[in-house]
């Protein structure tokens, strides 16, 4: 309860004020006596490492969790919400970190669920779609509002969730890592909307691991570390270096060093191919493409949202079955019937949709880590407990998964730590070719450099890697070669000297169809 008890005269009254908030889970003190204030007409960034307690603070505010201690006031009145619906009714609109929509409803229904325009008492489907289309267009997203949500990639789903939150007239808008899978353009649109709302007096709480974004949009920030408040600062008065050392709790020197060394593409990769694809494609998904990936090589996949980068990766893994072309692995033809065939050939695929296609939330860290390996072994040959424990201990340490308790359920981990578990599941299998779709999504800067470094090291040891990321800088820095995707086709292949600008020029090349994003 360090924040001044009396109002400083110069400052307006906070709209939201939380004092001495503590949240505990069995064995974990997720928040300890945290103070937090949010003013009207500001964008406030909540900063901290993976597992620092950012999402927990948001959930404590919106009634998902009931704090063990502390007081929350909204507009000066003490509140204690019993759930998100009540918070919503009080004017707090929230987009949680894990997209929380109904996959089998349409985009329009998802956006306006519970507040559909009505005609004669019945839901007016046409008006619903029209209103939804309007809201989406406002965000620069041109998709069919009548399409089913599940058909869209995770980034579009994220935008739909944001559109839903923005659609109501809220006093407080909370966005927990809304940009984790968005491209530059979508981020720009989102920021435009955020600024517009802020100027209308909405208080916005924003979480992101991208420092550039935080510095671009936020007016003030609160930093958490290990569930404790470290400080509240004006963004303009806190340098990036200071922010990072506040977040990780030690001097930045070591980290900067790591960052400099980390994740540079190593020297020339070998020319021994691990995988060769000729004319591989699938109707309605990706046009036939050729691709060759060598031992020890990192091949980056760059492209805009909906350009087919994820789809291409899924074809290589047999997650979707290619309907044309041939794949050879180590010179032998591989019939990609499904993931099992790919895994048996030494291919691993880390999906970008960690909640839907990645982790098994109700299983422990241990079970999640060994799942792929166990599946390859078959049910009758369980991995001995001793081997399991060794592997799990090794990877929890290597990726700094927190909490380091192998029995913790993965669904209860913070987003970034779930991502690490997913990555470890595949590293355990020691694949020849590792396909990573947005592996650093939602991961804090420390862990991000760690993972990039790991990728570079694995490549140096001979593993071939396909690296997909919306962050072009990351792709360029890590890759020996960059494959550029556009409109669901491979359009170019650039060598190590490629720059972000080169890629941008290729993918931003003006398109006849403005609805390139539409599925």
């Amino acid at each position: 309860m360090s924040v001044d008890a009396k109002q400083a005269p110069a400052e307006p009254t906070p709209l939201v004020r939380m004092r001495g908030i503590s949240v505990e889970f069995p064995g974990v003190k997720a928040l300890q006596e945290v103070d937090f204030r949010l003013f009207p007409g500001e964008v406030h960034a909540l900063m901290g490492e993976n597992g620092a307690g950012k999402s927990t603070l948001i959930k404590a505010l919106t009634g998902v969790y009931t704090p063990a201690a502390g007081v929350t006031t909204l507009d000066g009145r003490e509140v204690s919400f019993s759930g998100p619906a009540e918070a919503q009714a009080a004017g707090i609109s929230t987009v949680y970190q894990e997209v929380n929509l109904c996959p089998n409803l349409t985009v329009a229904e998802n956006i306006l669920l519970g507040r559909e325009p009505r005609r004669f008492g019945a839901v007016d489907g046409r008006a619903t779609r029209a209103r939804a289309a309007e809201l989406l267009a406002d965000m620069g997203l041109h998709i069919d509002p009548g399409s089913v949500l599940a058909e869209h990639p995770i980034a579009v789903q994220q935008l739909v969730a944001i559109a839903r939150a923005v659609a109501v007239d809220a006093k407080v808008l909370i966005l927990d890592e809304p940009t984790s899978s968005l491209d530059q353009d979508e981020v720009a649109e989102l920021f435009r909307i955020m600024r517009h709302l802020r100027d209308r007096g909405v208080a916005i709480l924003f979480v992101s691991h991208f420092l550039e974004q935080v510095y671009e949009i936020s007016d003030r920030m609160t930093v958490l570390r290990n569930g404790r408040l470290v400080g509240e600062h004006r963004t303009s008065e806190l340098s990036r270096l200071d922010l990072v050392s506040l977040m990780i709790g030690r001097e930045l020197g070591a980290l900067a060093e790591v960052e400099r060394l980390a994740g540079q593409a190593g020297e020339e990769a070998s020319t021994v191919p691990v995988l060769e694809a000729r004319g591989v494609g699938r109707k309605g998904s990706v046009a036939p493409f050729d691709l060759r990936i060598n031992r020890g090589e990192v091949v980056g996949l760059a492209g805009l949202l909906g350009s087919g980068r994820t789809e291409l990766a899924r074809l290589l893994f047999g997650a979707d079955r290619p309907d044309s072309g041939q794949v050879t692995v180590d010179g032998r033809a591989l019939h990609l019937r499904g993931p099992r065939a790919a895994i048996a050939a030494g291919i691993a695929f880390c999906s970008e949709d960690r909640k839907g296609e990645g982790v098994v939330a109700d299983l422990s860290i241990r079970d999640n880590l060994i799942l792929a390996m166990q599946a390859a072994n078959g049910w009758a040959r369980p991995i001995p407990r001793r081997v399991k424990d060794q592997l799990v201990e090794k990877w929890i340490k290597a990726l700094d998964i927190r909490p380091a308790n192998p029995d913790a359920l993965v669904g209860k981990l913070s987003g970034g730590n779930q991502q690490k578990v997913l990555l470890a599941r595949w590293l355990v299998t020691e694949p020849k070719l590792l396909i990573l779709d947005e592996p650093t999504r939602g991961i804090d800067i420390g862990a991000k450099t760690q993972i990039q470094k790991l990728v570079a090291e694995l490549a140096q040891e001979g593993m071939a890697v396909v690296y997909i990321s919306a962050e072009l800088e990351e792709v360029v820095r890590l890759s020996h070669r960059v494959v550029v995707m556009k409109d669901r086709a491979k359009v170019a292949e650039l060598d190590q000297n490629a720059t972000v600008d080169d890629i941008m020029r290729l993918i931003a090349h003006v398109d006849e169809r403005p609805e390139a994003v539409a599925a």
Partner: protein
Amino acid sequence: MTSTRPLDRFRASGLLWPLVALLVLLAANAVVRPSFLALRIQDGHLYGSLVDILKNGAPTMLIALGMCLVIATRGIDLSVGAVVAISGAVTCSYIAGAGDPTGAGAAFAGMGIALALCAVLGLWNGFLVAVVGIQPIIATLVLMTAGRGIAMLITDGQIITVRNPAYRTVGAGFLLLPVSILIAVAVFALVALVTRRTALGLLIESVGINPEASRLAGLRARTIRWTVYVFAAICAGVAGLMISSNVSAADANNAGLWIEMDAILAVVIGGTSLAGGRYSLTGTMLGALIIQTLTTTVYSMGIAPEITLVFKAVVVIAVCLLQAPKARAVLLRRTRRRHTPPDPDAEAAGRPSTHTPTSAMVEKVAQP
């Protein structure tokens, strides 16, 4: 749960409340009728109300074990009652038509044929669910309705009675304890061993929790789902043998009627969520015992038949509520508010839990 106190660990396992419910039911019976707990040995057989409960509950236990694994994969099998009828019908018709209707050979051959047919029926269910992709509740509804018709065809619409000592052993025999309960316990031990000593249990749970993630991790999700339906049908087949053997007759209309509901309830009461994933075989056995004790209680307390089902429903709801952390927290808060200031423990217990059996049931019902 990091606590190492045995009681806490037990509570975390979810078996506490079903066990409490069972003990309360047994105690209530003992109070009303003190002879309830009495056991005696006669001719090397153990007799008593408790033994009766075990014996009559054996078919439900078996079916619930199969149902438990099906539910763990996010499925459900409504056809087990019909399979019970078919299994009894096939065996009795075969024995009745055999050259020596009293011989052990006829009994074993008949049972073998019946179980093989049940396995085929399970393959059919599994095919519809895992390959064709029909929702389990609809896919198994097909056999649920058609199955009794098939049983009627086999028995020609008659109740077939047989006199075959070997066959009678399965449902009515004793080896100190009733043979049927020995079979149920043996199957329980076998399933527990196979699923927990190998990786099968983990793979089943994984498929139930997140089918797509499991597929991408390289699990044979389809085969696993298929297999559990076959297993459930075989369990139902064995239960059908017990039921028909106990009365030495096959009744296509009434054998195993509504037993699928009892089995599903047993699984849910035992703490396994209808949403799939984590399952408890021990809980399922406890659940089956609770259901059977309840049935016995209703009879022995002389509760009027009209309100029997209502009474059963009330107890089931009570057990499910006790298991739901949310409901328990509300109850606790109520009582504590009256006596003491609110306790943070109760608040903490109010955290939303997505996997309480009851909430999952409600979810299932609410879904189209």
